[in-house]
């Protein structure tokens, strides 16, 4: 099984979710995150002092999938999350050795 971590722009979440549903993904977990990268941060102003906020709001999407879905998933995320502007984010892939569904005790791909 593969774990896909995608860091995307927050307002793209719905679109990405729908794209993933279309290719048959039925589960995922998302986490609020802040990202630091090439996209430049904001200059903020507080009580007359300016400062730069480098960390921008991002959403981190995590989904574990069967190996054969990898290509489709990557493509789907890439398409739906892209705006073409800097800061669109990254996708990282790694291997998951075991998955368990807590409710039923099912393991492996049937747990996803």
């Amino acid at each position, binding site marked *: 099984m593969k774990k896909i971590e995608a860091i995307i722009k927050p*307002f793209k979440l719905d679109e990405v979710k729908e794209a993933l549903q279309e290719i048959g993904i039925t589960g995922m977990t998302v986490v609020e995150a*802040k990202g630091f990268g090439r996209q430049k941060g*904001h200059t*903020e*102003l*507080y009580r007359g002092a*300016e400062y730069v906020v480098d*960390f921008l709001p991002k959403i981190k999407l995590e989904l574990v999938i069967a190996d054969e879905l990898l290509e489709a998933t990557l493509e789907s995320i890439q398409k739906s999350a892209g705006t073409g502007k800097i800061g669109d984010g990254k996708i990282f892939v790694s291997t998951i050795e075991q998955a368990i569904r807590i409710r039923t005790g099912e393991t492996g791909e049937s747990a996803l």
Partner: protein
Amino acid sequence: MSKFKKIIGGLSLALFMAGTAHAETLDLEALNALVNSNAEQDSYIFGTLLFLIGGFLVMWMAAGFAMLEAGLVRSKNVSMQCLKNISLYAVAGIMFWLIGYSIAYEITEGAKFANFASLGPRVFGDAADNSGGYSAASDWFFQMVFCATTASIVSGTLAERIKFWPFLIFTALLTGFIYPVVTSWEWGTGWLDALGFSDFAGSSLVHSTGGWAALVGAIILGARKGKYENGRVNPMPGSSMPLATLGVFILWLGWFGFNGASQLAMGTIKDVTEVSKIFVNTNLAACAGVVVAIFYTQIRYKKIDLTMALNGALAGLVAITAEPLTPTVVQSLLVGGAGSLLAMLTVPLLDKFKIDDVVGAIPVHLVAGIFGTLVVAYTNADVTFKAQLTGVVAIGVFTVVASAIGWLLLKFTVGIRVSAEDEEMGLDHAEVGVAAYPEFTT
């Protein structure tokens, strides 16, 4: 000057005045004059006090709008909404002093526009300005906070996408010109007043005027990005329901000043009794607004919509504002309840036309305001439906035209809408310096 001496000075003055009659060897006529002047003085003080108390309560409504709107916009626009609300109150105050008040009240009876020669800033004499039976400054203050209320209504509807400075320029136009003109027609004794139109505390003059300006603005500005997509309405829930609730409680409290002090006098048993009745009717119209909203949403949606309950209270208040004195309690409940229902029915209607009203100011202030104005014909025997309808239409037409000119001029010069990127990022980053909740790590 010490806090003590002052008092003692005031007291001796009183004793001196009291002494007048005595010095003149107790002449009955002199005593009679003293009694009458005392009575006049009391009446003056009570009237002025009513304006001051009513005035600070209505000023407090500015905080209510700020909290309501801060709660109903998304986090990324909350600082901006706070900024707009405090700024519009400041601009309203200055504009209404500079020119607004004179437009509203320097008008010949029955006329359509103020006397040009009298336009200009309001000056308050040092001597007691006794002519009106109340202090001129207290009256100005009371009128000014009404003017600010009108502007507050607009800011909510247009939230999350309008540029700060164009919004503020429109506020100056609204509070320095549009609202004063409308007011002059009725409270300034202009042509609508002559016609028999009646709007006790401003369902139309304040709330509809604000509502029309907001509606025109919303149409010209367009909906928020993503609000109406693929043929479906995409709700964009606000950042904080408790702040929105606080805002409504503040507004409800302020409304006692809004309607109660619109009695404009408190120096007789009759006046203060009527103020009391206004308190009761105002309160119960709002109660009915809430009750109707919770029943309606429970039945219609199987859940109770908190934001509708909040708007229901406000719609009830707006509806009763045109005539909070003559109705019986039952009538007040009906007016408030019907205002609430109408507001709730309007919300989806606006969505149908893709008019994006972030906080629901149009259903609450415009629709319930019109309804409240028209229904006066049925709760106040002295008022005709025709006069009310005339007023509603006239105010609507004028405000729509004037606002449209204002908004369009702004749109085609400086522009009124932030860039799509700024809208997505949030106005707090784009135009204000600071996010509403700026902490990430502590």
